[in-house]
């Protein structure tokens, strides 16, 4: 039997998911020997888009896409990936839910370009030149750039078979996901590859796991308001931790390092809109109504990684 073929495409992402795959270290050596990596752009392998386009449809066994779909180039290659791959996996929270870069949907493209190229204090651009989709150099060389769109998760562009959460996915979890892929032990198409438990269920700080009961939060704190206790629940102490609604495939790494969970693992099974479920979970753990109004910047807190996949998907522009 020939080796399964793997393709990897980094769309609107930072490359952190690629690094997380490389972080598999020895496991990657075992896995890579069993795989034929035919395409990994633009980071690891020297492959061109035309090479991918030239492959027969359905010839690649597994395709991974990390990063959200943010411009016309991403949209095109993602569609090509869907044609060429039998199984397409949204790898990491950006591809699954839009990711932290999905927060661009709170602004218009004009606002963003204005901020990035004209209005920033350190920008020197007196002629107010903005990036263009086409430009002709020396009167004969035409150069092109992809056009920007609202950020979208992968499943708003093509059909997605599996989702893997995390920013980036935790390397042990990636190892398990790869092993499941190679052994063919996969859940039904359209589901998340996850152990299905929330961060709280694997968190050492969870009082319920220590036989105690959970108390309401009586204050709202930010991480800059000082370190939390060594082993107490961050939510009880008022740090707004999204562990209750986030998949715990990371093994609760952030809370064990005194940092409240921000929800990069993606929603626990059965949740349609991560941010709204987080609102529900956090609001019902507060001791009184006044605390609700003390939560700073709730949109960025609850939708930090999932705005494009939410019901609204973006800020409504009028």
């Amino acid at each position: 039997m020939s080796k399964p073929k793997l393709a990897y495409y980094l769309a609107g992402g930072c490359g952190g998911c690629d690094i997380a795959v490389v972080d598999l270290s020895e496991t990657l050596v075992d896995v890579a020997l069993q795989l034929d990596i035919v395409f990994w752009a633009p980071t690891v392998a020297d492959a061109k888009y035309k090479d991918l386009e030239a492959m027969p449809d359905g010839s690649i066994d597994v395709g991974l896409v990390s990063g959200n779909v943010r411009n016309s180039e991403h949209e095109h290659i993602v569609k090509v990936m869907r044609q060429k791959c039998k199984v397409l996996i949204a790898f990491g929270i950006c591809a699954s839910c839009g990711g932290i870069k999905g927060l661009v949907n709170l602004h218009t493209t004009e606002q963003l370009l204005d901020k990035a190229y004209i209005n920033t204090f350190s920008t020197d651009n007196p002629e107010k030149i903005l990036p263009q989709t086409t430009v002709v150099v020396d009167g004969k060389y035409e150069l092109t750039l992809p056009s920007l769109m609202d950020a979208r998760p992968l499943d708003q562009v093509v059909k997605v078979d599996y989702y893997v959460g995390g920013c980036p996915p935790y390397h042990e979890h990636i190892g398990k996901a790869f092993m499941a892929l190679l052994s063919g032990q996969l859940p039904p198409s359209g589901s998340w590859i996850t152990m299905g438990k929330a961060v709280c269920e694997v968190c050492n700080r969870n009082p319920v796991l220590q036989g105690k009961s959970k108390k309401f939060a009586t204050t709202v704190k930010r991480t800059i308001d000082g370190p939390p206790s060594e082993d107490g629940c961050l939510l009880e102490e008022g740090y707004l931790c999204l562990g209750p609604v986030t998949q715990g495939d990371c093994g609760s790494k952030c809370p064990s390092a005194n940092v409240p969970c921000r929800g990069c693992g993606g929603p626990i099974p059965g949740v349609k809109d991560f941010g709204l479920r987080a609102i529900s979970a956090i609001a019902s753990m507060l001791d009184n109504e006044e605390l609700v109004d003390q939560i700073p910047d709730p949109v960025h807190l609850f939708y930090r990684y999932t705005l494009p996949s939410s019901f609204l998907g973006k800020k409504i522009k009028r």
Partner: protein
Amino acid sequence: MAWEPRLIVIACHWCTYAGADLAGSLRYSYPPTVHIVRVPCSGRVEPEFIAEALIRGADGVFIGGCHFGDCHYKEGNYKAIRRFNLFKRVATELGVEPDRIQLEWISGSEGKKFAESMTAFDAKIRELGPNPLKGGAQ
């Protein structure tokens, strides 16, 4: 055909739904644009329910629960108001008109209040016009 608002009223079984029942028994009239969904408790109402109703074509969403201290499950309505207030903050920041969503405590004996609240909510939504969110943000 002229536009008619479509209002979703999520009513708790023990108070607001009983209030709606009483409004009917006492022959109080309220607008036919109201569509009541019965839930066991206002604490059952997830913010997702409200958002999904708005995306799928509701022009306004009204949540009715028991007065403080009256909740059949003791604290469901306290959870409801915290979730609702936080959801309203987030929704407003994302550009949803805050007047399209409302939370009110209506007990089983307040049939008149139910009818009046519905009439007022209907009038408010008529003033706002059709919900621009139908089918998702543009």
